[in-house]
């Protein structure tokens, strides 16, 4: 078996170094080596989205990324969504709208939703459903998730408006 590789990356804003086997996925290393168990394994072949993370701002299935590939990359997992100021508006909205049951898809759903709102701050319902179609949820029937993403988008939009007003001073 080949030797281990040293990987340096930024994860949730922190510089991190870890050793991985060449065949190990980013998901495995996040969970088993770095203790970041928020991203979940549902299928390990890129079809459920439970392992979604942001890789240099791009939404990826971390089960399909080799850990050795993330050298020098910036990674955001569900553990990095909240800040010292509190939960991310998406997290607040998922709680308020009851957009989860078992919660296993929730980390991936939140990360995918963040990736959507980062690109498209005011998505339509159809755009939300289309973007999140790669994230399976077996519990909720999706309706409350759509509402939560809409509520978070509205919240973020009003925060931006307040910031703009404040800037104009």
């Amino acid at each position, binding site marked *: 078996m080949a030797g281990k590789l040293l990987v340096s990356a930024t994860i949730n804003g922190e510089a991190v170094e870890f050793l991985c086997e060449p065949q190990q996925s980013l998901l495995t290393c996040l969970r088993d080596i770095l203790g970041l168990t928020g991203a979940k394994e549902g299928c390990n072949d890129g079809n459920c989205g439970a392992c979604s993370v942001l890789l240099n701002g791009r939404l990826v299935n971390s089960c399909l990324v080799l850990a050795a590939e993330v050298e020098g990359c910036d990674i955001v997992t569900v*553990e990095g969504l909240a800040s010292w100021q509190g939960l991310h508006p998406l997290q607040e909205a998922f709680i308020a709208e009851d957009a989860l049951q078992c919660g296993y898809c929730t980390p991936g759903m939140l990360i995918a939703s963040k990736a959507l709102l980062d690109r498209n701050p005011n998505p339509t319902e159809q755009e939300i459903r289309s973007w999140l*179609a790669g994230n399976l949820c*077996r519990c909720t029937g999706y309706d409350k998730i759509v509402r939560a993403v809409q509520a978070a988008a509205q919240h973020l939009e009003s925060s931006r408006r307040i910031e703009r007003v404040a800037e104009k001073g």
Partner: protein
Amino acid sequence: MDADVDPTVAGPPSPGLSVVGSRPPRVDASDKVVGRARYAMDVSLPGMLVGKVLRSPHAHARIVSIDTRPAEALPGVFAVVTAADLPPIDPEDKRASGEQTFQDRTFASRKVLYVGHPVAAVAARTEAIADEALSRIVVQYEVLPAVTDVMEAVREDAPILHEGLRPRSLAGQDDSPTNVASYFEQVKGDPAAGFAEADVIVERVFRTKMVHQGYLEPHVSTATWNDRGDLTIYATTQGSFAVRDHVVRLLRLPMSRVRVIPMEVGGAFGGKNSSYVDGTAALLARKARRPVKVAMSRFETFQATGPSSGTVIRVKMGATRDGRITAAEATLTYEAGAYPGSPVGSGAHVMFSPYVIPNGRIEGYDVVVNRPAVDSYRAPGATPACFAAEQVVNELADRLGVDPIDFRLRNSASEGSEALDGTVQGSIGAVEVLEAAKAHPHYTAPLGGANRGRGVAHAFWGNWGARSSVTITVNPDGTVALLTGSVDVTGTRTSIAMQAAEVLGLPLERVKATVGDTDAIGYSDVSAGSRTTVATGHAAVKAAKDVIAKMCARAADIWGVPVDGIAFRDGVFRTTGDIARAFTFVELAGLLPDTGNVVIGVGNVDVGDWGASFGTHIADVEVDPETGKVTLLRYTVVQDVGKAIHPVEVEGQLQGGATQGIGWALYEGYDYDSNGQMLNPTLLDYKLPTMMDVPAIETVLVEVPYPGHPFGARGVGETPIMPPPAAIAEAIYQAVGARVCDLPMTPARILESLGII
């Protein structure tokens, strides 16, 4: 009603509830949105090894030999186990055959019965070493002909799975081996006379495929032993005690030696009532003398955990011109998978039960085939039966030219009416649900386009009660710790805590609900059968009343008055005599440490009285006549939920259940080749509904309180999976005239039904 359930708490819910019926955030949500919630997949213990299972590549084969030595010799391998490591079975024991079957489900001893049947397992330092070790185990098989189709399995010349199997109800009449594990027949009235009386008769045969629960978290278990012989298991399960009892039976351990810690559950839907890898992890960990975690892959989950039966169902129903159902007949043939035990009885029980039908006959067959043994899936056995019966009900209404909801109302069950199988309905909301569906704007909204259609379907599900345990400990600051033995798979920590808070007169924030492990709390049955909010709610109410009684006694002690001179109302303990004294709950809680022992309320119940549930669904579809693709335009679920303890969670159950039913209707199904190999064991090829496939599902909660529950609650989780296939099939028929009788209703099936291909 069980004697343990306090009859004084029964009755319709009082007005003025402050917690029950409100919509607080679920208590588990905040940990789940930050990735802090701990699932069984997240467990890691010092020195933990990776456990992996070697599975049969054949659907049916005799095991000639297993050589594990090459695997054992590999550095980094700590244990290899097979059926030979399970406790020996005394052939003279009258339970020997049952125990052999039980053990064979964990490791095949003589024969493998499906692709994926476990044969051996290894524990190794890393996953890579474990995989290498599996590849070094040499199993010699004598491959046998396999049968995966239920109708082929009942033929006389079919390969026989279990040489000793005789049909249960026909034992003694025919002594030749069979794949028919059991057979039943129920008759009511005079079916022939009933059909003779009918003006219209519809008879059809329906076929449905095996489907999977599709929980996103695969089965996983971590086991660790100490040197005293105590075993601890971290499980993903609907019932920690079910896991304990499984492992105790498999390894023949004293119950007190096994502690099962239920972790957060990543979806279950009936598929985590059974153990698949808990015993394997325990066996490996004992042999390796290290903690072992066994996690199934998605591939293994499809191939080797219990899905729901594929079925063939013949239905015949007759009605008079004035819309009265005179007779019904059905033959249900259900795949059991590798071992007997399909939910054919449950399908038979529910399929005609929404209606009063004077004459009828139902036959059921439980048939073993070379597929994984089936397990429960949300309203086990009921969805295919509902699909079949409700399509025929719709066709009758159509042929008679009557509105399908009016036709159902004309024949509806009501309190005291007797179903075809003899079940007498208790307090039910069948009529209320049908009327609410008829009054819903969806039912009369214009369809607004060509190739569009609307369908309805209606379902009855009986629900469940059973055993639950709750304790409530009062803290000196006036908060309480509620411990339940019921695993929370849907949000029941919240709905149980709400019921306790209501009785205690406390805000929900003061009730901390925790799921206890098997050492910490009394026996509780699996969280299944839509029972948990109802039955464990009974237990919580009982425990809360016990707390109140004990605190009343303490107040009486402190004040030096008789206990019957104390009343508890609106969160305050007061004297009822001349001298007015009062303690708030918080004040009295603060005095507890200095005035006596700890106050712990106990609620153990075995609930024997619970309310059934009815649901009516309305589906609008558009069918592309060229491609056969079905688009769901609008979907409404109307259901009698009793009193909704937490209406948002109830909505979530209805939406989630309906979505699983939609998947069953349009997308899902196991496909096999002639060798018994599953062709679609990935989430790419076995398609679950995505966010793009379902519309925003509207819900109507019809509250017909169940008088046997303290707050009138009914089980709500299972009913909503049943109606979607029949409602969508009817909508397709109304849209394009194709009557589809097979699930899933793929584009190809629809084009076939239209005669295009």
